């Protein structure tokens, strides 16, 4: 919330309407009197009155305006209200408020333009960011006009607030197990026995077994104590590897066309929320110039941190050699989810490395259908098209190579996309495998 006056020229200034009525009235009256033409006095008489009223209502107070935003944190598609607060504006009759156009922020009413009488309540704008990111919302220009339109104050800017807009949070239910749960406590059925609830088997009693585990029916039949064993329940780690090297395709905000980074961020948010809901630990690794990394964590506070990091993503090419030195630092059993349009070869290398380490890895392909390269001015479109086709051929090769290594690649189709893939990875994890170290 910021207070604003109109800056150095914050005084009330005469309007063009007042100047016109004063000039015309003066000319008409003088000409009428001096030239003996009463008809001119008839013509300008209403303007004389209007000019007099405008002059008499000259304001003396200096107004202060500021905008108050309803929320400090938003998800894309959500709305908040920016209310214009006026102080020292008792002498103002009318207020005009014009919202500064901000990409991916929808403003109501009337595209962020409003003019109304001050006495008819505050001028509110409903703001709805349509895309994740850090958006400036609530910035607007305000002008006040005195009674009879004689004097105007402003326009002054109210200033906007930089609000983090988190990617849309889509809940989805999944019954797929985590491929290799390795944690302490959680919701995933483990491969080892433990103190869970799911039946594993029956074996003879051993010192240390809990008495409540004794299966009395089997013990009575066999003249020896037996206990029921269960599968342990563990949490799992999920490492999200997010490709922020470039943004391909056109973004139209939520509900419209999605760019590759839109798909990447929204898919990462959905997977992260699903994992947190299941009690799993989530880590985030951004592949890009910033190279941001968030450690493993669970719970809603950590999810908010992950979403915040996703909202702060900016597409940027990494420095030379930086990506090649990328290390995932994923512990054994961590499920690696690579979200990328797979147009950078290095992402294929990272994925292959994770696969060779025996980590359950899957790739979510976030290249939107019909994506075209952003051609800069002066670039030969034919050459750009050729380069794009070559890049897509290389991408096909990378994806084929990953498929040969047993890495599932699925295009993001909304919540539940990775359900079947995760299930298959879980089945595969129970089979014997060779790990290259």
């Amino acid at each position, binding site marked *: 919330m910021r207070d604003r006056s109109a800056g150095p020229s914050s005084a009330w200034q005469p309007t063009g309407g007042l100047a016109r009525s004063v000039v*015309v009235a003066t000319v008409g009256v003088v000409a009428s009197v001096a030239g003996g033409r009463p008809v001119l006095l008839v013509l300008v008489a209403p303007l004389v009155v209007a000019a007099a009223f405008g002059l008499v209502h000259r304001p003396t107070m200096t107004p202060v305006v500021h905008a108050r935003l309803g929320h400090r944190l938003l998800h894309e598609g959500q709305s908040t209200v920016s209310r214009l607060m006026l102080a020292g504006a008792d002498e103002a009759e009318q207020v005009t408020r014009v919202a500064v156009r901000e990409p991916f922020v929808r403003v109501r009413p009337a595209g962020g333009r409003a003019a109304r009488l001050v006495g008819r309540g505050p001028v509110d704008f409903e703001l709805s960011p349509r895309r994740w990111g850090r958006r400036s919302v609530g910035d607007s220009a305000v002008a006040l006009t005195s009674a009879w339109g004689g004097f105007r104050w402003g326009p002054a800017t109210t200033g906007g607030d930089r609000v983090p807009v988190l990617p849309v949070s889509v809940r989805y239910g999944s019954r797929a197990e985590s491929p290799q749960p390795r944690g302490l406590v959680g919701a995933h059925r483990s491969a080892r026995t433990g103190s869970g609830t799911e039946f594993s088997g029956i074996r003879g009693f051993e010192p240390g077994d809990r008495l409540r585990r004794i299966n009395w029916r089997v013990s009575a039949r066999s003249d020896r104590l037996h206990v029921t064993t269960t599968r342990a329940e563990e949490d799992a780690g999920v490492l999200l590897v997010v490709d922020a090297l470039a943004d391909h395709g056109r973004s139209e905000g939520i509900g419209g066309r999605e760019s590759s980074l839109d798909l990447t961020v929204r898919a990462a948010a959905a997977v992260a929320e699903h994992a947190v809901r299941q009690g799993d630990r989530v880590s985030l690794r951004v592949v890009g110039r910033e190279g941001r990394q968030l450690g493993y964590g669970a719970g809603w506070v950590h999810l908010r941190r992950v979403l915040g990091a996703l909202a702060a993503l900016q597409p940027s090419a990494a420095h030379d050699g930086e990506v090649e030195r990328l290390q995932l630092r994923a512990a054994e059993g961590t499920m690696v989810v690579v979200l990328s349009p797979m147009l950078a070869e290095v992402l294929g290398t990272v994925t292959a490395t994770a696969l060779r380490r025996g980590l359950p890895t899957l790739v979510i392909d976030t290249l939107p259908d019909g994506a075209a390269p952003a051609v800069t001015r002066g670039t030969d479109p034919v050459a750009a098209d050729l380069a794009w086709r070559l890049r897509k051929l290389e991408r096909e090769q990378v994806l084929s190579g990953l498929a040969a290594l047993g890495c599932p690649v699925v295009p993001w189709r909304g919540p539940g996309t990775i359900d079947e893939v995760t299930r298959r990875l879980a089945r595969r994890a129970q089979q014997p495998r060779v790990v290259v170290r």
Partner: protein
Amino acid sequence: MRQWTRGQWVLRLVVLAGPLLALAAQALQGDPPHSLMVVVTALLAAGFARYPESLAGAVAFAMVLASWWDGGAGRVDLSALLAAAALLASHVAAVLASYGPDDVPLDRPLTLLWLARGAAVFVAAPAVWLLARLLWDQPEQSGVWVAGVLAVTGAVVFAIVAGGDREPA
């Protein structure tokens, strides 16, 4: 102009038509304005309609006054009231149009307020017209118009000061 709302289009048309109607009213006296005067006023009115805060409006109005000065031998008949109404309508429409950028929609209560104000201040025109008609046949006395204008101005200022507190703030 592409962004103008329907209300803005209506306002700009009124702004444009006002000075031209005031000139046309002069023709009702049997003394049509000079064609060059009409062309120049039309151009100024067009500029006034495009930029209602500009000086073009004052100059267009001054051209109308000059035309009325020149024609009709100073007669005061009903066509003067028509011209006064046209000028006032143009002025009010310009004030409404200049409350914000071109694409700001018109506020209905504000428009109604200004219609009421326009009707109220227009009363001054028939009042002066009646006074002029009464004095038309009288032998002219030295300083009668100066005294009349001063009296009317004083009355207007008194009425404004007295009624200022009752105006909406």
